């Protein structure tokens, strides 16, 4: 766990989403599916974001600007800096034989980095509109599904599924592929086990997603 003040390189439009690119400093990129806490200027609490891109010099975070924190993050410009803490939590297990990435909406955020680490496996990505689906350009070998069609209708059988997306999608994916690795989301104040805010029910108990997850081997 390391916290650093990182320089903003630029923010790019990716459909309705935005990709915040920063100089990575001395931060480790971690395992895909792990996350970082990004401190939006002018807000009290940092926001958890999974890493979308990692180059030798830069990190990229794909962000949906829907609230005051995400809007402040995506409103950053070159020359500004932000505090970033991470990598945190447990990422995807990468020792899988026949990976298939299944994602929905902003849940595709960790996939560009995950895809690179897994050797560009096939992916099925679902979006609510064609504009949102522009994001799929970041993920190699992706089949795009736009609502009302769902990713579960396009998922080929016989794969090791790694999934990230809205909760109903994750539950539907888990019903089809019980061994799927699922990346969950919950509001977090700290990301390192201090606040107990991100509790989710795991194995019948309320546990901290930031410590136990965000990637879980079974449906939470």
């Amino acid at each position: 766990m390391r916290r650093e003040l990182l320089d903003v390189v630029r923010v790019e439009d990716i459909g309705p989403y935005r990709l915040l690119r920063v100089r990575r400093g001395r931060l480790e990129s971690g395992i895909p599916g792990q996350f970082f806490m990004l401190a939006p200027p002018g807000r009290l609490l940092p926001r958890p974001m999974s890493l979308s891109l990692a180059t030798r010099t830069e990190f990229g975070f794909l962000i949906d600007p829907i609230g005051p924190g995400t809007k402040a993050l995506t409103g950053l410009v070159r020359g500004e800096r932000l505090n970033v803490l991470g990598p945190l939590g447990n990422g995807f297990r990468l020792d899988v034989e026949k990976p298939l990435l299944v994602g929905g909406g902003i849940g595709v955020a960790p996939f560009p980095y995950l895809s690179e680490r897994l050797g560009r496996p096939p992916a099925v990505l679902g979006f609510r509109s064609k504009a949102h689906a522009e994001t799929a350009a970041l993920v190699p070998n992706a089949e795009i599904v736009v609502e009302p069609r769902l990713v579960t209708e396009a998922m080929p059988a016989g794969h090791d599924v790694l999934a990230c997306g809205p909760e109903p999608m994750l539950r539907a994916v888990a019903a089809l592929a019980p061994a799927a690795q699922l990346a969950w989301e919950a509001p977090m104040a700290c990301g390192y086990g201090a606040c107990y805010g991100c509790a989710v029910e795991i194995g019948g108990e309320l546990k901290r997603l930031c410590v136990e997850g965000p990637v879980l081997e079974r449906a939470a």
Partner: protein
Amino acid sequence: MILNASGCLDALTAPEVAQSLDAFVTKTVTPLPREGNQPVRIAETDLGMLNSIGLANPGIDRFLADTLPRLLDLGVSVWVSAGGFAAREYADLCARLDDTPVAAIELNVSCPNVSSPEEEVEEIVAAARAATTKTLYAKLSPSVPDVGAAAVAAARAGADGLTLVNTIRGLALDERTLEPKLGPGVGGLSGPALRPIALAAVFTAYRATGLPIVGVGGVETGAHGLELIASGASAFALGTVLFADPEAPLRVREELEREASVRGFATPLAAYAAAHGGPPPTPLRRVA
């Protein structure tokens, strides 16, 4: 002395943060295990954050068997926050903790997410006092008509010190649906919004009792900590700031030294009670 506010740090998941404090205060331990409240449990507000964790904890049995030994292995001074629903429960917890190496017990008589009538403060502290010789702090709520009276009640019942303040109740609504953001509806407000409230409570409780006080509420910088000391706190704790900045203890400590020095104080504690018109020679217990 810089501590963490109870419930704002888990020393077992972030040992290096706990080790950067002068003492680690546990999340409140209750007699029985508690899962805590249903999500959503936290929400950011304009000048603070709301939480409704609901005293999630493993209960005193598992705490003593499993958690405490691992905390003590970290080499930090451990304060245990104890919470119950009757004076007898607080007494039982204190009796169980009495022969452990914990440095102090902080009685949580003020969690806003569970009920605890103000008039019970004296009864709870007295029962706890009878059950332990450990250093005993009473953590009081600022949401009472007369925090000075509550402080005097705790002092009269035998508290060695006071912790001020806990969160106060707040509500945040979802912008779009206008429904409460937190699962249980209302929660405890912490962060910068608490700062003047904490200063007033510490100021008042110091005047009323002269007891040692751990000031808590919205501290983000060394200057904020120095203000609590000037108001009558002999130590202060970091809460919400730890969520955003796990390195806050080291930073705040450096800032505190500097802020005291630029105001002409040899040490931060030389500013003790300065807001009251000059520091008294020693903290006196002004309770009959």
